[in-house]
């Protein structure tokens, strides 16, 4: 099996190609665009038997994707950031339709201010839509999880759309060695699309996306989405083991890195977790009992796994690349709820917000986070939430504000 260098975007495109998707509605947006360009080249060049159409917006794109999926074909699409939010109305619809498609989101911070670089507020805005969410940390994970996502989405116990998330720039434009699975083996793992009666057929009239009158039927169907999403945890665990048998790589809802005897644990999602691993290695070399826990599944939220992995630790630091103004880090809040009510009270929880709008998290900052956590554990009380932000960065902002102020002065003079 050979490995080649692929960007995260190219890995996502390879996932769609190997999944033999029938239809790709598309719309350009940085940093996702390379995915649809790669697929367009393959489809127009006859390498891939599929159809790709650029719609006039992400809203139309997701509408077309959902409609195609419920007519009985395998659908792939991709977006980022503002595009995901512009299509937000359709995310809820597609989940309600039980349209089993795969959407790759390449994370990018949301406006305003306008930025191109990643954080997770975009994908977390889709948290309650009914889409399942798989968060990737490497290019290989992106390719593999597109395949897993189709199995998950199309499973009769689940039948929900899935978002596969990767970080813009840090993963989308970074080349890593990726093993491209053998198409024959993929066909064995991922059989052709089964519509399970969800199709358009002459002579078999059916209605999709009907309206209901009254809260009773609405409650029933919305709760069905929740139950199906909860089922997806066990299904993903099963699929992960099947995937390992086919391709030799195991995927689980939560990755635990050097956690066996860890007293202090970092928790984060996405590609920045690979930086956290390096910091964990450094601290282990220095004799500290530190580990990393990284949820791949965010919906369904792997509560049981997280309680098992984190319940007995002394301290847990959650690093959120998102911000819910007025509340703080979203993952921190979710984890605090998941760990609530443990027999011995559970670990001390600390909240750090960092990496917003593509800001790097330096290795030294991970070391600092562990130091703050360690002191908090010794003290016996959680530290206040902290934003990763340096004095140098503040100076840079002040310089920009000076430029803006200067242009106003020029205006006064004129």
């Amino acid at each position: 099996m050979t490995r080649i260098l692929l960007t995260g975007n190219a890995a996502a495109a390879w996932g769609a190609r190997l999944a033999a998707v029938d239809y790709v509605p598309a719309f350009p947006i940085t940093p996702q665009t390379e995915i649809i360009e790669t697929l367009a080249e393959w489809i127009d060049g006859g390498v891939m038997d599929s159809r790709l159409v650029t719609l006039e917006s992400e809203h139309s794109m997701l509408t077309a994707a959902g409609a195609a999926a419920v007519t009985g074909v395998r659908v792939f699409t991709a977006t980022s950031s503002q595009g995901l939010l512009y299509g937000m109305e359709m995310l809820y619809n597609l989940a309600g339709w039980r349209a089993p498609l795969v959407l790759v989101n390449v994370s990018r911070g949301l406006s305003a201010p306008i930025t191109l670089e990643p954080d997770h507020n975009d994908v977390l805005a889709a948290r309650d839509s009914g889409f399942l969410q798989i968060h990737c940390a490497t290019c290989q994970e992106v390719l593999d999880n597109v395949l897993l996502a189709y199995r998950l989405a199309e499973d009769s116990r689940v039948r929900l759309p899935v978002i596969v998330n990767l970080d813009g720039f840090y993963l989308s434009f970074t080349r890593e060695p990726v093993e491209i699975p053998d198409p024959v083996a993929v066909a064995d793992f991922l059989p052709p699309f089964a519509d399970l009666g969800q199709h358009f057929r002459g002579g078999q009239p059916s209605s999709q996306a009907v309206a209901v009158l009254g809260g009773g039927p609405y409650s029933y169907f919305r709760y069905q989405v929740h139950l199906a999403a909860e089922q997806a945890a066990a299904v993903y665990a099963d699929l992960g083991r099947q995937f390992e048998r086919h391709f030799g790589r195991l995927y689980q809802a939560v990755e635990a890195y050097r956690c066996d005897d860890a007293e202090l644990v970092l928790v984060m999602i996405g590609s920045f977790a690979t930086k956290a691993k390096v910091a964990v290695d450094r601290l282990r070399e220095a004799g500290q009992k530190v580990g990393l826990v990284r949820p791949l599944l965010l919906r369904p939220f792997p509560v049981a796994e997280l309680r098992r992995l984190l319940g007995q630790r002394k301290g847990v630091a959650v690093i959120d690349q998102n911000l819910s103004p007025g509340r703080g880090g979203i993952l921190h809040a979710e984890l605090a709820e998941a760990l609530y009510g443990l027999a011995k009270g559970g670990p001390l929880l600390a909240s750090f917000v960092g990496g917003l709008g593509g800001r790097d998290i330096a290795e030294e900052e991970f070391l600092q986070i562990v130091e703050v956590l360690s002191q908090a554990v010794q003290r016996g009380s959680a530290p206040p939430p902290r934003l990763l932000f340096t004095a140098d960065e503040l100076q840079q902002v002040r310089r920009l504000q000076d430029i803006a102020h200067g242009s106003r002065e020029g205006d006064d003079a004129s």
Partner: protein
Amino acid sequence: MAFDYEQYLRPGKLPHIWCPGCGHGIVMKGLLRAIDTCGLEKNNTAIVSGIGCASRLPGYVDFNTLHTAHGRAAAFATGIKMAKPEMDVLVVGGDGDGVAIGGNHFIHACRRNIDMTYVLLNNYIYGMTGGQFSPCTPTWAKASTTPYGNPDPIFDVPKLAIGAGATFVARTTAFHATQIDKLIAAGLRHKGMAVIEVLDDCPTAYGRRNKFRSVVDMMKRLKEIAVPVKAAAHMTPEQLEGKVLTGILHQEERPEYCEQYQQVIARAQGA
């Protein structure tokens, strides 16, 4: 004496992001000359844009400016004009922004005939994201998402604007630099929705995929395809094949939206 562009530029904001050979700078200079000709006050002028290469323009110019979401410039501009009808409101944006993702806002601004000036820089492509086809990419031209040619028919922006109800519609090209300010100035003086399409070039994302050997080739093409409306009146359909009409294509008087709204207020107060 040479025109003083500096008076309208924000200090410290240059160099701009546009590629060498891009015509957006030519349009920006035309826009500033038009604003100067019409004597618009800086503090009373708002320039709004959405997302894209053309939408970076408001960042460089020293007026009240708003750089908004993809496709939403006309809606933001409508909000400004309704809240402050005394302001001069301009929109600057590209073809993808204006008539693809923002198409709905564009046609409804035209329909209302709200008093603003919309300068649409049509470079036939989504330039900023690297050259995906837009509703203005010529049929069978190449784009990064249509490497073997684009099968889609195009929007004719002036026809779209006229059909939707805009009361001043004009077109020129980045080659016809001196016509740009004249048409924008005429649009600014017009009471109602004014749309000025400027056909532009994108050597980076469009030209290199479509056999334009240089920016000069692209500018030559703009020169060659443009036919002034008056000249076109004397030409046969065969002669007009592959040409585009330039100049003021449509102008009519129709009640302007903010004034209509004042009548609603007057009626309510009279009742």
